[in-house]
């Protein structure tokens, strides 16, 4: 038995020396043959049996192992001539350039050499060392003339990828052969190689040029047997055959004295083959192809990319003891159960070690054997031999022989905790622990309420199940991963598991005031509850006993629950506008002491993923814990569905019927819209059209027409909604937010509305029209995609076509969005995965660097909060308010403050302040206050994050998962004179990628005291800011290309109005055009002195775009009114200049260009800007991500003092672990460099440990359990 597991501690890469290659080889490979005519492998050929075993029954010739035991052995090929190892080609070039060809030392003077030597010896940090070495190299290469050590003249060395080197001697360029290169590298002294970054204890530079090529063992490149019977060799084998063949050819030619140029050609060919064997994707070199024209897979190709070794076989693997089928719903299952088909339960096993405590059960199971369920599949004796129970005839007898220490593999049974998952696994909730319930039939079954976290529906979805094999993992699953322990989302602090669809419709109808249940009906409902406290007294006694649905619902609630919220169906009655009006409509939910007093239960109360506000479910889950919430949900789902099934709920086509008056109204609205459009078109055609500021006439027409039509649709939607009555099934579903929304009703019953492509009305397809059914240039509603019909009435052919176009656009958008958001998620995960919470609430990375000093600024775990708030202040206020009248002598506000500050002194300031605010509003005595403060303190302490929580992963997932919902393209601004700003996913990507300039840079300029109250003054400043280019002040340009003459006719009025200094303009032009500028009446005559016509053209094109007035970069300004002052919003950004301008408020003016903020205001300001930008993207799309995640992300991007992007040139690229970097993006180059430097990866972070099979240092892997004996 294994008591101690040994784990890999570190992985070190280095170069392989020719000596080592020869030593480790089992044989020398000389024949370019694989198998001979009898089908046996050729000795000293590429498939020599000394290199390993391929057939199951054979034994290895070298080590005697069977196919399971023998790992395969290397061989080697003695190359006739040295060959450059392509993977190091660039590095070789750098070294050649940095060393002197005579003395072979690094070309830096002695003092610097000493300095660097010392520096390198003392610096341990790999990143810093890399910087130092880079400096050394650049200094060495720049000294081109003479070697500072020996004085010899230096020649320039050119590197021609992928593997050629050319030295430019005074006599002319000569090609350096691989041998030449190797010789030079050999001469470099150790110390110099060290200065150039070599791990000199283990590596020598000349090893980068191969003299002997290791031949990989057979299992690395196995052959396959095709159906037709023939054998197909692996790509690598083919390549090796080529190499051996050419190598032999080369050797013969050298020996037999063939002319040099033929030898050179053969040598080149050998180099080519060895190069493509390593990497077939080289630029400048045709990739070697299989006979079928398919490029062969070189070694590099096996490692890199999504399907390569790292991403597909190491960081992720296919596993045993897993299962996958279609899922189907089962409302009678517990929330945390999963229905497992018998066939699956009889295939997956759990290993159980037999001990005196379970030996009887074990014997029973073995006796039942593999044919029964429950049963067992195998028995493993103490010596390790496995017995397959299918082949035991007398199971009972065999069972008797079982003794402690044996292991049995028993079938999956009811109650076993397994991992259940649905891909894509975007957040940790996509994998949860479920208890097995073995059931007949072939699908996995789950309770409907648990669909939202998995994002599962039953239209054919499949899900995966993992049977956990070790006790450790089963305990972790049961303690941490069960569904009930993960009800609250780490993303926004609300319930993920909850009521959906029919649950909501059911409980709404159940808890409506008009739902009365007879004794019989009550009985039926109670029977679905199984256990409840006691039957309540009927609410109505005469003439018959009746209970209300609310009473039934109250049976589910905890007895001390007090809660109040507005139901989804709540519509403020603006007519009455008085307090108390809500009660009339029964739309405010009030729960007192576990009784539902008023209100209907719908999405707002028990829905899953309700981002808009606190739900009843949130409170139950957080306040009473997962177990209680599980009970509640189980009962809730059963009761509500039973009620709905009994009552019946359906949707008929007649429910979309509109009363004739409404139909008339709809028609009228549309006709009115058409009439307005006619009017506009008339104006337009007559030429009396007034365009909007900043837009052309056509654009304005489009905007206005579009506006009219979307207005129509809105009005129609409203009319239709008003006309349907409360019991209409569609209204029930939409008002309770179970499914559907106002737009669906409008489209089904009223009118589908305007279809759009890329934010505009449909206009393309044919010349100046969308379809040939319309006239060219026709701009009216119907010809540009307005669908007048409702879904119920049906669409006309052209309407159908337009609708299909719009539908297609949205599908394409979704498809691209998944890929892009998936990549973002991957980048975020790779950048953040090592971050964990330490014991003191700090967030640190795998190297111990501090990212945040207190997670989320308060150390709170979103999972333990009420939508982000650790303390339920509403409830607090309610409790105080209720007991207020009982208070005889209340405390003074001053004493209240003292007590609050004393009791809550260790809590965050904001919580203290909130509590104080509430407490000072009401009368309260000291006893109650102390009790309350204690509750507050406990709530807060209870909500703190656990140490070692992998919040890097949680943050990455919390940002990545909702990014799937962000729109990819954003065309909302069909409005009047709105700015154009990138929103949604593209903007989020820009911020996280730390893009140098946003695609739509924009500033918000606040004005100082003097200017902010007057629109005119604001306008004046805006005018000064808006920049004009030379093009803008020129009426006409005439160019005479031959004589290089330009005549620029100026816009005099504009120039005078703006007060543009022509002198400056002239001098700027003369500088740029290298000539003279003369002013003549209202033009400038330029005589350029540039010779080359091309350069002349370039120069004047650039000239026209030069800013001559205003702030460079700012193209448009807009005056807006915000909170009582005038503010300038711009297109284009130049913070540096604007902050210095007169009239500008230097302290509030901001921009969305984060780099500018970094340069002008510092790293902390940049951090704040990042947070603001991300927040605004999310808010604009209505997506809620708790701010703690954004804070952590911003911290991670700024903790180095400058701005780092999420990605291989940023956070991820700076990781010390080469395994982490190699498995992320640039695989082979990373490994090659790591080998040269002799990097040692001590597996600090998550992904490298997964690759090495070592428990990760985050979460449960960070702690070890010790047992006391």
């Amino acid at each position: 038995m294994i008591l101690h597991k040994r784990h890999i501690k570190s992985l070190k890469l280095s170069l392989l020396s020719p000596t080592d290659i020869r030593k480790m080889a089992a044989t020398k490979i000389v024949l370019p043959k694989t198998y001979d005519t009898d089908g046996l492998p050729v000795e000293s050929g590429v498939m020599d049996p000394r290199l390993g075993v391929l057939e199951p029954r054979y034994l290895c010739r070298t080590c005697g192992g069977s196919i399971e035991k023998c790992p395969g052995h290397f061989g080697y090929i003695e190359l006739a001539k040295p060959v450059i190892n392509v993977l190091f080609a660039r590095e070789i070039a750098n070294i050649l350039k940095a060393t002197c060809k005579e003395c072979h030392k690094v070309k830096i003077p002695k003092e610097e050499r000493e300095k660097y030597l010392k520096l390198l010896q003392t610096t341990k940090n790999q990143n810093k060392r890399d910087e130092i070495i880079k400096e050394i190299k650049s200094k060495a290469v720049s000294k081109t003339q003479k070697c500072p050590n020996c004085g010899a003249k230096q020649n320039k060395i050119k590197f021609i990828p992928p593997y050629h080197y050319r030295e430019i001697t005074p006599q002319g360029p000569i090609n350096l052969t691989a041998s030449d290169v190797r010789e030079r590298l050999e001469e470099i002294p150790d110390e110099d190689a060290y200065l150039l970054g070599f791990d000199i204890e283990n590596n020598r530079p000349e090893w980068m040029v191969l003299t002997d090529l290791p031949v990989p063992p057979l299992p690395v490149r196995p052959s396959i047997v095709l159906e037709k019977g023939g054998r197909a060799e692996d790509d690598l084998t083919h390549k090796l055959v080529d190499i051996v063949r050419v190598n032999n050819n080369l050797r013969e030619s050298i020996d037999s004295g063939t002319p040099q140029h033929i030898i050179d050609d053969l040598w080149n060919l050998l180099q080519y083959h060895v190069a493509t064997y390593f990497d077939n994707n080289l630029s400048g070199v045709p990739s070697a192809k299989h006979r079928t024209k398919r490029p062969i897979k070189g070694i590099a190709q096996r490692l890199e990319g999504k399907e390569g070794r790292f991403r597909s076989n190491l960081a992720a693997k296919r596993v045993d003891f897993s299962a996958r089928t279609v899922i189907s719903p089962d409302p009678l299952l517990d929330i945390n159960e999963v229905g497992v088909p018998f066939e699956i339960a009889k295939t997956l096993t759990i290993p159980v070690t037999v001990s005196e405590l379970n030996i009887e059960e074990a014997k029973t199971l073995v006796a039942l054997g593999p044919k029964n369920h429950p049963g067992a599949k195998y028995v493993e004796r103490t010596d390790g031999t496995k017995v397959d129970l299918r082949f035991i005839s007398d199971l009972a007898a065999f069972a008797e022989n079982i003794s402690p220490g044996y292991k049995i593999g028993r079938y999956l049974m009811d109650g076993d905790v397994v991992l259940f998952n649905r891909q894509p696994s975007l957040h940790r909730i996509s994998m949860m622990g479920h208890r097995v319930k073995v059931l007949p039939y072939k699908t996995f079954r789950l309770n409907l309420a648990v669909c939202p976290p998995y994002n599962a529906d039953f239209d054919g979805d499949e899900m995966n199940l993992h049977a956990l094999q070790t006790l450790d993992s089963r305990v972790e699953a049961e303690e941490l991963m069960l569904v009930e322990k993960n009800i609250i989302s780490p993303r926004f602090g609300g319930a993920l598991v909850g009521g959906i669809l029919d649950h909501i419709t059911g409980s709404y109808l159940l808890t409506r005031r008009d739902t009365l249940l007879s004794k019989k009906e009550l009985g039926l409902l109670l029977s679905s509850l199984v256990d409840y406290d006691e039957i309540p007294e009927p609410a109505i006694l005469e003439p018959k006993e009746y209970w209300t649905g609310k009473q039934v619902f109250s049976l589910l609630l905890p007895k001390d629950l007090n809660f109040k919220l507005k139901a989804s169906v709540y519509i403020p009655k603006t007519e009455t506008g008085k307090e108390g009006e809500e009660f009339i409509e029964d739309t405010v939910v009030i729960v007192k002491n576990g009784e539902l007093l008023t209100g209907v239960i719908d999405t707002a109360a028990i829905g899953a993923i309700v981002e808009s506000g606190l739900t009843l479910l949130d409170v139950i889950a957080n306040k009473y814990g997962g177990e209680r919430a599980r009970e509640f949900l189980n009962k809730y789902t059963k009761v509500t569905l039973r009620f709905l099934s009994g009552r019946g709920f359906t949707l008929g086509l007649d429910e979309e019927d509109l009363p004739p008056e409404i139909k008339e109204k709809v028609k009228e609205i549309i006709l009115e819209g058409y009439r307005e459009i006619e009017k506009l078109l008339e104006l337009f055609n007559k030429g009396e059209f007034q365009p909007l500021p900043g837009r052309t006439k056509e654009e304005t027409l489009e905007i206005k027409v579009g506006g009219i039509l979307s207005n129509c649709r809105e009005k129609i939607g409203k009319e239709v909604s008003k006309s349907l009555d409360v019991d209409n099934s569609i209204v029930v579903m939409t008002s309770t937010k179970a499914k559907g929304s106002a737009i669906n009703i409008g489209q089904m019953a009223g009118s589908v509305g305007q279809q759009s492509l890329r934010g505009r009305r449909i206009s393309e397809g044919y010349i100046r029209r969308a379809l040939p059914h319309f006239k060219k240039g026709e701009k009216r509603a119907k010809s540009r995609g307005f669908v007048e019909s409702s879904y119920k009435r049906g669409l006309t052919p052209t309407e159908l076509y337009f609708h299909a176009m719009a539908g297609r656009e949205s599908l394409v958008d979704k498809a691209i969005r998944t890929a892009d958001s998936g990549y973002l998620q991957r980048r975020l995960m790779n950048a953040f995965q090592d971050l964990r919470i330490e014991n003191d609430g700090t967030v640190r990375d795998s190297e111990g660097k501090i990212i945040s000093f207190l997670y989320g600024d308060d150390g709170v775990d979103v999972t333990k909060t009420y939508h982000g708030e650790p303390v339920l202040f509403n409830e607090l206020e309610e409790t105080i308010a209720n007991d207020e009248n009982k208070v005889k002598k209340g405390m003074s506000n001053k004493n209240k403050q003292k007590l609050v500050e004393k009791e809550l002194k260790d809590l965050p300031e904001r919580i203290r302040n909130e509590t104080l605010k509430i407490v000072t509003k009401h009368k309260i005595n000291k006893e109650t206050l102390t009790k309350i403060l204690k509750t507050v303190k406990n709530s807060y302490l209870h909500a703190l994050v656990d140490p070692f929580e992998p919040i890097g992963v949680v943050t990455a997932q919390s940002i990545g998962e909702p990014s799937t919902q962000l729109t990819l393209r954003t065309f909302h601004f069909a409005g009047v004179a709105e700015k154009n700003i990138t929103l949604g996913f593209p903007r989020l990507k820009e911020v996280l990628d730390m893009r140098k300039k946003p695609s739509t840079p924009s500033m918000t300029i606040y004005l100082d005291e003097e200017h902010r109250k007057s629109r005119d003054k604001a306008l004046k400043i805006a005018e000064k800011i808006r920049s004009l280019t030379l093009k803008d002040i020129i009426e006409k340009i005439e160019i005479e290309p031959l004589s290089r003459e330009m005549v620029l006719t100026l816009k005099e009025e504009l120039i005078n109005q703006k007060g543009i200094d022509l002198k400056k303009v002239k001098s700027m032009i003369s500088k740029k055009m290298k000539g003279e500028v003369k002013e003549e009446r209202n033009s400038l005559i330029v005589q350029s002195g540039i010779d080359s016509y091309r350069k002349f053209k370039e120069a004047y094109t650039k000239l026209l775009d030069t800013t001559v007035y205003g702030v460079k970069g700012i193209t448009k300004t807009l005056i807006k009114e915000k909170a009582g002052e005038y503010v300038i919003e711009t297109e284009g950004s130049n913070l540096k200049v604007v902050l210095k301008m007169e009239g500008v408020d230097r302290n509030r003016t901001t921009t969305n260009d984060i780099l500018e903020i970094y340069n002008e205001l510092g790293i902390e300001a940049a951090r704040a800007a990042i947070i603001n930008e991300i927040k605004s993207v999310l808010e604009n799309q209505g997506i809620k991500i708790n701010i703690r995640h954004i804070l952590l992300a911003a911290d991670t991007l700024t903790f180095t003092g400058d701005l780092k992007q999420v990605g291989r040139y940023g956070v991820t690229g700076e990781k010390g672990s080469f395994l982490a970097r190699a498995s992320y993006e640039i695989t082979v180059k990373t490994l090659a460099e790591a080998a040269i430097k002799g990097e040692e990866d001590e597996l600090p972070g998550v992904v490298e440990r997964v690759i090495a099979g070592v428990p990760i240092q985050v979460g449960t892997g960070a702690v070890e359990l010790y047992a006391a004996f």
Partner: protein
Amino acid sequence: MKKKESSIISKHVLVPLHEVLTEREAKEVLKRFHTDKEKLPKIRVDDPALRGMNVKKGDIIKITRRSPVSGKAISYRVVIE
């Protein structure tokens, strides 16, 4: 002239309070978080927020931000070149 510049920067809404810690205060912070200077978040010596302040490489800056979560949040950065 210099004074005016630094006050421009430090009063901007996006820029939190930056203060240089004394030797002793710095040592306390390092002790409290069980760490060394290299492991702290960094800030460049030419960072605009530090203008007008007498800082050199190795100093520790205490940053007091306003936090939507907790009211006040404190962070530290070590000055690098």
